[in-house]
């Protein structure tokens, strides 16, 4: 290629221009849902997704993509297929009204429960329940957390979540020093004023 950018000109020629070689199966990595705790004491909230070949890499990608500037106190990820989802409702219909009753199994696995309380906003963690299946977790959550109108509920088994370990909590401590990422570090006002004053003098 003949480019203004010498690094582009040096790129090796691979395949035919415009033709993508066939992809291998699983080229499409799994998707993982990302949850962030914005401040100490605040609940975790859903932020978006990342694609990754495994949950540990998903955690690293999530840290890069979602906490690069909006610093946080903690982060966790769970594979999308491990998130159990209720029906979505609207208006005055409560999603909990559509959750079926499941009798207690006596199994004590921990499940994290998330609520969507306003359409267009994020799902927010409300707490943990003990259950033997996601259906049972939803049913138990209805007894414990059904205090106001919610439009959608998620349940994720805690053992399927990649949590931030205590040793990793210092991941975000370097961010405040990266001032060059902040809009506040680019104050051109004084320079602009000097320039405009000089213009006035010369004209």
């Amino acid at each position, binding site marked *: 290629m003949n480019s203004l950018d010498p690094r582009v000109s040096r790129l*090796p020629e691979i*395949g035919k221009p*415009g033709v993508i070689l066939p992809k291998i199966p699983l*080229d499409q990595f799994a998707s993982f849902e990302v949850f962030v705790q914005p401040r100490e004491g605040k609940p975790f909230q859903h932020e978006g997704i990342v*694609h990754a*070949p*495994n*949950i540990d890499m998903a955690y690293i990608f999530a840290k890069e993509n979602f906490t690069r500037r909006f610093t946080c106190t903690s982060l966790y990820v769970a594979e999308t297929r491990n998130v159990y989802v209720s029906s979505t409702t609207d208006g005055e219909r409560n999603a909990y009204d559509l959750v079926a009753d499941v009798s207690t199994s006596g199994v004590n696995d921990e499940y994290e429960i998330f609520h969507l309380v306003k359409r*267009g906003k994020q799902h927010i963690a409300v707490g943990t329940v003990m259950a033997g299946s996601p259906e049972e977790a939803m049913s138990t959550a209805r007894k414990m957390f059904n205090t106001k109108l919610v439009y959608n509920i998620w349940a994720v088994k805690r053992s399927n979540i990649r949590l931030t370990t205590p040793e990793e909590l210092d991941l975000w401590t370097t961010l405040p020093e990266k001032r060059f990422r902040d809009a506040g570090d680019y104050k*051109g006002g004084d320079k602009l004023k000097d320039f405009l004053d000089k213009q006035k003098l010369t004209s």
Partner: protein
Amino acid sequence: MYGGGNTFEGVKTDSVATEDPVLLAEFEARIARGEKIEPSDWMPQLYRKQLIRMIEQHAHSEIIGALPEGTWITRAPGFKRKMALMAKVQDEVGHGQLLYSAAETLGKSREQMIDDLISGKSKYSNIFNYPTFTWADCCFISWLVDAGAIVNQLANAKGSYGPYCRALERICAEESFHLKYGHHCVIYLAAGTQKQRQLFQEALNRWWPPMMHFFGPSDKISTHTEVLMRWKVKMGTNDEMRNQFLDMYVPKIWELGFTIPDPKLKKNTGTGLWEYTEPDWEEFKRVINGGGPCNQERLEVRRIAEERGKWVREALKSAKTTYVTPLA
């Protein structure tokens, strides 16, 4: 950056006629009430199709938009500018990821979107088919192309599709750094030597026509988008967006003592609208269809990156995880 000048297919409203009238009425009432549509909700095929198209174009624009600026990282003047430009380019690529995810919730896989970009089937913002000859070109993009993108993105963030709005809120917050940084760069060129001023003036002359193209074809010739406006897919007409940009940034360019290469450009104090020479829409069409100075290079860089990364993806593949459509 960079959601701008989207091209919409000619909207065939008859496809709406085949939708279930009860569901369609509920859908429209929800949007009229100002509620967001979430991925699991029923939506008309046309809504889904046009949203995928728009969000996908926006995502591609972020990824391709990182190229003309990225090329200047090693040559940016001084360590601080290099760090800032690197952070900005990283942001743009991150925005691309956020947007691909939002489009995926509508049912098109990221893999497919990337393939469609490389094969030339999907479009991206036309402005990135032009080269950045000098540092001043790079500053023009950082300040004014980002400014134009923010005008579009702030409008789109009020749209009807939940995942897209959430991605845009995040993106807009990060853009404030880009805009401040870009303005800072241009102020330093303006207040610098005669040569620096000339460098930016030349960049402005080169980039003004593509900047006017950025918001898409004039309302007089653009395809019928009434239904997209009603469904809050498109939040303003191309001319409205262009006018808002001119209103906010022409005074700031003039303040720095630069001239804009359009003798007809002035604000009509009666209507409050800007008057300008009609951009060359034939040129716009030619470039969007592959005839611009950098179209081929941009796609080749992406394609070669994709091919070169293949062995990494192969090494990482694992049968323990599976792709499913993301939730929100």
